């Protein structure tokens, strides 16, 4: 019952059992880290428990000694020693758990980050960015709190047991009276856990609604700025606030019920024990000091009442650890080769043999064959959703095919060392990620040793040098302070790819945000730089396809034709791939008009 409640409360819908199993495994591995510290923690805690249980009786003995004026100094020294050891033990406990906890958290985070990088792009599908980040920052800290919590929970339990035992040792009647009175406390607490969850969940939902609205407004900030509607938007974001307030009050109402009943229970129990103890005292069974000790023992024994919260916290830690374990247990889709082969020298000759890729039960690529001659530029053309990006991802092993193989210079890419492969094949994407601290850093992300001259040269090829110089600090502008349009961003990505100096360069829609003029300049510059290298371009525009040496026409998961653009242009279904533009042109009246002196293609 409790676990499913907690999981609902955390909002996960993974089967509870699997998560907890993964969590237990991670916790066990964490315990294995710095085993010595865990043992030391246990020892120190045990010492603390012993001295805590001894304290009331030492106090009682000192009171008696004070009352009878005998051997007071001896009792005081003993009491002082017990105090000192208890305090030292508590302080050491805290210090050791923190040190151990920080070590374990760091270790787990390193592992998690490394795993995420190994899982790569297929992993991103399973664990989206926001989810992974929350696992890294929050869940990875769970095991660090688990063991200290567990040990302190055991300590509290032992202390309570010790206190009850000590109470019984003083006088068995006191012990029995206490135990009879303690049962209602447990009952009250159980009620709290079951009742409080309802309004609390609703509270979390409302809070999440406000935060999501705020995030939406951030995305549309330019519109809000231009419309001057800030107050109205703030009002709209805070619409759920009154209900949040109301739900909050409900949570308080539940807490009130439990709290006042609980506040009564402890002191009344102490009065009860005091009364019975007083009778025993009057009858001469115990001393005044022992009576004081008995009352203190009642307080100590009631310390276990908070164990319920600790149990809930432990389960939350386990689930958190489980979420980390999920990532760590995932086998990477792209595994490095067992016996890596070095790639042969020479230009990049790419070949795909009988390649099939299936996604979500659909065959995106279906027994595809493609052989790209080395040193040529090949445009991949096809309607949207036909798998152009999937195809290009195979070349650099950003994705592995389900069947068939991809060869580079006649060597299967699966046998090449991954890092070497990724230096031979480089990519430029439609929306390059802003990695690195400054603009220079972003371009040189994969080649940190590159000089400024190299970076500037690469940026010049990508037609990015000009706009970079117009930034506040030029190449040293921090990325967070470099507002950029889509076209500028794409050119940075291109510069990064150019700097990589690879044998095969894949441009995946990497010039889509550039206007036609810039695209031509980029293409001309790239042509010079990439002479003799293989270039694979995903093309949406006829001009891009035209500029390439060959066009690979991707249709229904296979290559329908591999020929130059002007040869394919005679096929109406080929023209239909670029179709929309033609229709617009016809409507706008600027259809292909014949220019005197230049022949139209046949």
């Amino acid at each position, binding site marked *: 019952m409790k676990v499913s409640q907690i999981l609902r409360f955390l909002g996960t819908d993974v089967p509870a059992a699997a998560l907890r199993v993964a969590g237990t495994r991670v916790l066990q591995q964490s315990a294995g880290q710095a085993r010595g510290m865990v043992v030391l923690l246990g020892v120190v805690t045990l010492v603390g428990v012993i001295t805590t249980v001894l304290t009331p009786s030492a106090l009682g003995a000192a009171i008696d000694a*004070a009352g009878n004026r005998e051997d007071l100094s001896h009792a*005081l020294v003993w009491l002082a020693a017990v*105090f000192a050891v208890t305090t030292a033990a508590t302080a050491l406990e805290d210090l050791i758990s923190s*040190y151990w906890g*920080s070590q374990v958290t*760091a270790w787990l985070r*390193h592992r998690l*980050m*490394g795993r995420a990088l190994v899982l790569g*792009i297929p992993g991103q599908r399973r664990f989206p*960015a926001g989810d992974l980040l929350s696992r890294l*920052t929050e869940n990875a800290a769970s095991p660090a709190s688990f063991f200290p919590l567990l040990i302190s929970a055991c300590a509290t339990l032992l202390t309570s047991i010790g206190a009850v035992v000590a109470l019984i040792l003083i006088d068995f009647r006191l012990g029995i009276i206490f135990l009879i009175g303690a049962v209602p406390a447990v009952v009250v607490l159980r009620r709290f856990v079951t009742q409080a969850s309802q309004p609390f969940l609703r509270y979390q939902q409302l809070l999440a609604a*406000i935060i*999501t609205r705020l995030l*939406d*407004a*951030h995305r*549309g*900030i*330019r*519109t809000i700025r*231009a419309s001057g509607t*800030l107050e109205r938007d703030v009002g709209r974001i805070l619409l759920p606030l009154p209900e949040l307030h109301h739900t*909050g009050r409900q949570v308080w109402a539940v*807490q009130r019920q439990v*709290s*006042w009943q609980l*506040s*009564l229970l402890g*002191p*009344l129990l102490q009065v009860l024990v*005091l009364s019975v103890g*007083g009778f025993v005292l009057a009858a001469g069974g115990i001393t*005044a000091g022992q009576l004081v000790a008995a009352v203190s023992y009642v307080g100590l024994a009631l310390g276990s009442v908070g164990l319920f919260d600790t149990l809930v916290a432990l389960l939350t830690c386990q689930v958190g650890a489980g979420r980390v374990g999920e990532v760590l247990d995932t086998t990477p889709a792209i595994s490095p080769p067992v016996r890596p082969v070095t790639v042969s020298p020479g230009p990049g000759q790419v070949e795909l043999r009988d390649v099939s890729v299936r996604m979500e039960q659909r065959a995106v690529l279906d027994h595809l064959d493609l052989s790209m001659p080395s040193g040529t530029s090949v445009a991949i053309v096809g309607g949207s959703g036909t798998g152009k990006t999937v195809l290009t991802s195979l070349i650099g092993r950003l994705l592995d095919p389900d069947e068939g193989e991809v060869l580079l210079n006649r060597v299967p890419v699966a046998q090449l060392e991954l890092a070497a492969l990724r230096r031979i094949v480089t*990519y430029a*994407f439609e929306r390059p*990620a802003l*990695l690195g601290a400054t603009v220079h850093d972003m371009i040189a992300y994969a080649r*940190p040793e590159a000089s400024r001259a190299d970076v500037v040269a690469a940026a010049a090829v990508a037609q990015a040098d000009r*706009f970079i110089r*117009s930034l*506040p600090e*030029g190449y040293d502008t921090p990325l967070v*302070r470099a*507002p950029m349009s*889509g*076209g*500028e961003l794409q*050119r940075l990505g291109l510069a*990064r790819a150019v700097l990589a100096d690879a044998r095969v360069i894949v441009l995946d829609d990497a010039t889509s*945000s*550039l*206007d*036609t003029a810039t695209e031509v300049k980029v293409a001309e510059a790239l042509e010079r730089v990439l002479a003799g290298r293989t270039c694979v371009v995903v093309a949406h525009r006829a*001009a891009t396809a035209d500029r390439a040496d060959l066009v690979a026409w991707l249709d229904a998961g296979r290559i329908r034709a591999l020929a130059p653009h002007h040869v394919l*242009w005679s096929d109406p279904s080929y*023209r239909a791939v670029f179709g929309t533009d033609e229709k617009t042109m016809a*409507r*706008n009246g*600027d259809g292909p008009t014949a220019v005197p002196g230049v022949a139209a293609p046949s």
Partner: protein
Amino acid sequence: MTLAAGVRLLRRHLRPQRQALWRLAGWSALEAAPTFVSGLLIAGALDRGFLAGRPLVGLGWLAALALLQLIGAVGTRQIYPWLAATVEPLRDSLLTAVVTASLQRALKDEKAASGSSVSQASEQVEAVRALYSTLLRTMRQLLSGGVAALGGLTVLSPLLALVVASFVFLAVILFAGILCIMVGRFRTVVLRAEEISATAAPVVEGMRDVVAHAAEARAAREVGEAIQAQAEALRAFARARVLRLPVVTLGVHLPMLALLAMSPWLIARHNLTVGQIVGCVVYLASGLQPAFQVVVNAGGTLLVSLGVILGRLAEVCACAESPAPAAHPPALCPTGHDLDVDGVTFAYSPHAEPIVADLTLHIPAGMHLAVVGPSGVGKSTLANLLARLATPQRGQLRLGGLALEQVDEGYLRRTVALIPQEAYVFAGSIRDNLAYLQPRATSAEIDEAVVAVGLAETLSRLGGDDAEVPPGGGALSPGERQLIALARVYLSAAQIVILDEATCHLDPVAEARAEQAFADRHGTLVVIAHRMSSAMRADRILVMDGADAVLGSHHDLLANNRLYADLVGYWDRTHGEPHADHRLTTPRPLS
């Protein structure tokens, strides 16, 4: 100092809750009553009852104690509504402040607030609520218990009370000093945790790029450094907590030892009975000691966390406070809607190349102007300048003859509408989204706008304008979101509409339709063109080439401007007819 700023923030938001806090204090006093008398009653029970061989009398005294504890429990019960009345409004006002501040910061610097910092701020408000309520609940109960215990101790033995109080006083001073160190260390912990997020987020979001460029090792190293830094900060904080040791010894153990050491002397000289000694011990053990230990242990962490988080929130709210408006001449409303750009120069910073240099342009009311040029040349910047979202370093922009800085803010925002590339669609009904700039729009006007920009098909697919858009936009495609933004501005009272690539996600047919709708609508239309077909539909075209700009009609520019001809020429070239020679020798016939 951020702690001081945080405390100021808390005080400011708690000011309306003064009355609730006083009531809270009152009921706390009642709650503390049993602690105050506990030592006295126990002393009486022992001296007059159990130790005197009259257990029933002792029982009577204890019964009185039990009764007082019942009264105390009533006090506890009554406290809760006042706790709620203090904490809930605090959360409300803090959340409002954070939301407003977060948006104000984003308004000033659009790249400033990222998604993670937004949710961090919201979590911090929640943390303040939780921490503050725990603080109030625990601390007030135990503090008043501590004060009550000292009071009771004074009644039993003023001398003892003095001794104990001096120890406690010293301990509190020591604690206050340690608290400052702990706050500083904890602040570092919080900051380092945020840095882990900040370092890991670009890597995780840009995983494809990291993997494709074989930069995993570098990424892992950078995130690894942030991870280690936070671990070290945690350890430093733990070391600071050890400093609580002497505080506990001074405030808890030494008073008890002193009391016991002094008791034979007190019994002999000051006629203190054993029962009264027991009473004093009870005050120390059940009243003062728990209060002190909670303050030092949990209270230390609580106060520290609260202090640091409040400090962070104060920073967030402070940055957003707009500077006092400079003394401006009274805001005026211009007559006419002609836009004038007069010798305007703009650059992002003093060292950077200017985006726009000495630009002079006249846009009469009603003109349809297209702005074209290579990517990154400054078209969006020009749009920002026209809408007064940016201020030029030199030169002046005028609306209806009046300098833009002097135009009334509200009038300007209503008259000039800028639609950016990223369409803003918020959670609510589609009707709310459409009527955003014109709340009093009638259904007929809304329908007209919807049909004009071409949103009708989407709307019928979604189920009419009462359809709800969920937070995050739901199933709307980027093109549909742009259509909603376009319809919204069409509906508004804007006299000057600036489309900053606001149709880039629409296919060319839809784009033409939307632009035509705006051209037919009253007022000026400025289109930052992404496709050259937009330029061909305009009255006049502004060609931006680096920092230079040329204005003309399509025909004129084609003949006289090499860049424009290239842009148009290249464009035509791509549509199915690759030419061997791209230089145009004959002017092309216009449509």
